[in-house]
């Protein structure tokens, strides 16, 4: 009987303990405990969400894109990907993903890189790095804590000759990704404000983040 009811519970709508609509261009952060699920929903489609994770107990341990790529022998993040830390430990696992092939190699936009990629006249524009820095400051973290991040819902194909460019997203309204925390983590994200390439379809839009107390998928 007990097993039966557990199976049913796992299939029921998850118990969301938190839900928040992140405005266009804004940062967000929150703590996700081990065993909980973070859902990030691209409400309106084609919206890049630049994301980093830190171990809640020792913030020098954090998401490491290269370790994640090396461990799974693939450059894209998709269902089944285990997000690894700079101590070779699993931080979160992608347990559901209605898109697949999210980027984790292209980093986030910044005023500084915008000035190089698109000209000095774009330096005044808001950028993910500004969101990360202000949000990280709330945890007494800073620029050194920023590393190559996840770009959920952003597509960056690598061609045979090494060509590497941000292309039109395939994410439709309501597309989401579910991440089960394997340790207590701080999630810091930037709802990307970039207007100079197609990562947000030239129209930054709100997203939603939710946290469930249990894994949303087996």
């Amino acid at each position: 009987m007990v097993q039966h009811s557990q199976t049913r519970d796992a299939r029921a709508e998850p118990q969301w303990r938190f839900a928040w609509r992140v405005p266009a261009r804004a940062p967000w952060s929150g703590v996700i405990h081990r065993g909980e699920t973070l859902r990030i929903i691209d409400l309106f489609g084609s919206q890049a969400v630049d994301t980093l994770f830190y171990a809640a107990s020792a913030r020098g341990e954090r998401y490491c894109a290269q370790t994640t790529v090396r461990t799974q022998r693939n450059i894209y993040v998709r269902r089944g990907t285990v997000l690894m830390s700079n101590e070779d430990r699993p931080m979160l696992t992608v347990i559901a993903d209605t898109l697949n092939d999210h980027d984790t190699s292209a980093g986030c936009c910044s005023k500084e890189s915008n000035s190089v990629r698109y000209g000095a006249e774009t330096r005044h524009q808001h950028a993910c790095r500004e969101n990360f820095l202000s949000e990280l400051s709330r945890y007494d973290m800073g620029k050194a804590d920023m590393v190559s991040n996840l770009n959920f819902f952003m597509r960056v194909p690598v061609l045979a000759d090494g060509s590497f460019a941000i292309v039109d997203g395939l994410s439709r309204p309501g597309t989401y990704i579910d991440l089960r925390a394997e340790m207590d983590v701080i999630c810091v994200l930037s709802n990307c404000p970039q207007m100079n390439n197609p990562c947000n379809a030239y129209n930054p839009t709100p997203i939603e983040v939710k946290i469930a107390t249990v894994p949303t998928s087996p």
Partner: protein
Amino acid sequence: MTDQAAKATMLKAADYRLVNLARGERLTIRNTHGAHGVGGFIWRAANTSERLNVADTMKIQGSTAIGRGSALFSDMGRMLAVMAEDSCGHHDMLVGGSTRASAAAASGRGNWRPNARDHMRSAAAKLGLKRADLGSCIVFFAAVSVGDDGTIRYEANRIRPGTHVCLEALENVHVVLSNTVHPLAEAQGLEPCEVELIVSSAPASAYQERDAFPTVEQRRAFDNKEMA
């Protein structure tokens, strides 16, 4: 410093080296024996919070492949160094260097072996820095290919003995090099071997003028030199 004053030293297999380069100086890595990977990370000496950013390096130059004339960018829209010479043509910024876990897996018995991450942590500590001061790194002399579905593979036969790369510093920088095998090569059982390091002054024709840079992005980054 004249060319005659160039300092050449051996970097033994499984060892690392911290090199300070003044703006305009060059660091040449001669891969005499065909080592499969020399990990590298760079900090700007004047402010070590500014450091190599491989994501910006790939994104700004529109390629995961870097070679002669490519710059290594910092997180502040500046070029820390330029690859003034490159006869290898295979350098990795997607997978990065070896770690305790990759080394333990490759050893087959879970043993500790020298690895790029531990090397870079030690080098950072000797500069008074912490693990947070290290980001994703570059691995010179490592041939990683990416399939259509994102699968990565190591192409060992593309690395030959007798090639070299030469970095010219565009700022005063600290460079750490870890002479450990790339983790994908390590997984194939390949072992490290010594490489030669040469520090020299740049020839007069070098990259210290804006016009030396072929791309508009590099020239804009050159213009960011004097920004705070």
